């Protein structure tokens, strides 16, 4: 590789992004620039707005103040949240088929290979209702191996995974960033990879405390 990380293109920028929920400012004046090859670890106490930030970046949560920019054209984003988006009555394979089919296509061979990578070999035709919480999480994560996507937005992706699962997933995160993708994820676990950048949402709430609390916080 001839180029360094700093020469990598920007995949996602925010300018003065803010979020207000129930007249409480979660974060304010958020300016980040996510480059290809970076893994952003979003931190913050419970209720700091980590999930909301990821939802805003994915487009699920409306943006009232500030801007989100995807400098590259047709940037593809995948969002896996607390709710995995799996249908209990369908098998692991069928779930992957429709999830990938929303914007792309996959063959059964590819889906089986992806399920094998997440350690679910032999469970392809089991309905998701029969799987354990960790296995369900793995089915959802198998999607990451099927879609060619630039940015992964993962909300607590280690939830209910066993230790080996976490090690495996760190490996996928590493490979994805090394191959020019970017990851933004929340986790209460420390991530020990060299390309990790930490975004502490607590810092951005501090900005808002200068406003008088009783009158609510003017955002503009």
């Amino acid at each position, binding site marked *: 590789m001839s180029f360094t990380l700093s020469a990598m293109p920007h995949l996602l920028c925010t300018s003065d992004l803010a979020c207000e929920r129930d007249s409480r400012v979660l974060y304010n004046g958020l300016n980040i620039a996510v480059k290809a090859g970076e893994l952003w670890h979003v931190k913050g106490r419970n209720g700091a707005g980590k999930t909301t930030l990821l939802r805003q970046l*994915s487009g699920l949560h409306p943006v009232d103040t500030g801007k989100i920019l995807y400098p590259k054209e047709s940037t593809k984003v995948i969002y896996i949240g607390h709710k995995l*988006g799996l*249908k209990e009555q*369908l098998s692991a394979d*069928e779930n992957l088929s429709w999830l990938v*089919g929303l914007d792309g296509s996959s063959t059964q061979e590819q889906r089986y290979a992806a399920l094998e990578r997440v350690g679910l070999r032999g469970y392809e035709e089991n309905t998701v209702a029969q799987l354990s919480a960790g296995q369900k999480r793995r089915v959802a994560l198998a999607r990451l191996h099927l879609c060619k996507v630039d940015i992964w937005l993962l909300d607590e992706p280690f939830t209910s995974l066993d230790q080996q699962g976490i090690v495996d997933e760190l490996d996928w995160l590493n490979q994805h960033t090394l191959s020019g993708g970017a990851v933004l994820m929340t986790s209460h676990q420390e991530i020990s990879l060299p390309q990790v950048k930490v975004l502490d949402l607590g810092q951005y709430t501090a900005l808002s405390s200068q406003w008088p609390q009783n009158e609510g916080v003017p955002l503009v």
Partner: protein
Amino acid sequence: MMRFMWTIIRRDLLLVARQPAEMINPLVFFVLVIALFPLGISPEASLLSQTAAGVIWVAAMLATLLSLELLFKLDHDDGSLEQLLLAPYPSWSLVLAKVFVHWLVSGLPLILISPLIATMLFLPSHAVPALMLSLLIGTPTLSLLGAIGAALVTGVRGGGMLLTLLILPLYVPVIIFGASSVAAAAQGMAIGGYMALLAAMFVFALMITPWAAGAALKL
């Protein structure tokens, strides 16, 4: 985009196939209401044939309403609605695909069984084609209009009652013209005007509701 809609349609049909109760419930409800009606009023043929059109239409409307609440709710609860909304296609296409399956599962069986129901209620046999035609145009309109309400109450706990209140006023014109068309056919009158109005309502609903429901889903 066609592939996006086809993916949703295929998934939802597969889900119905795994849980056939979802499909049979509205149909059973429809048949039961109509079967009980003569027991409550009177089994007299002359009275029944007069009221048949209205009874069938009201029962069809209630059966549609019954299944509407779950149109987006299940998807919302397991998070798959998020994934559908994240796909890079307009949300009206997702609504249209889901409404199509809803109609296929709850509307179409009603139409197919309606000749039998009509006989049960002594509806004159020459009015049966009008009944089926009016249901064919009317039930998709009911599904489409209902999608707005279903989208609005998605994520609201116990939104069923709210949904009924929201949607019922919109159903009134469809019921009026649907039932009158069958009554007119039973008396041997022309039904062209009624059908044209029903079709106009269908086209209007087809244009407006997927867009409105799609916007409501994003709230």
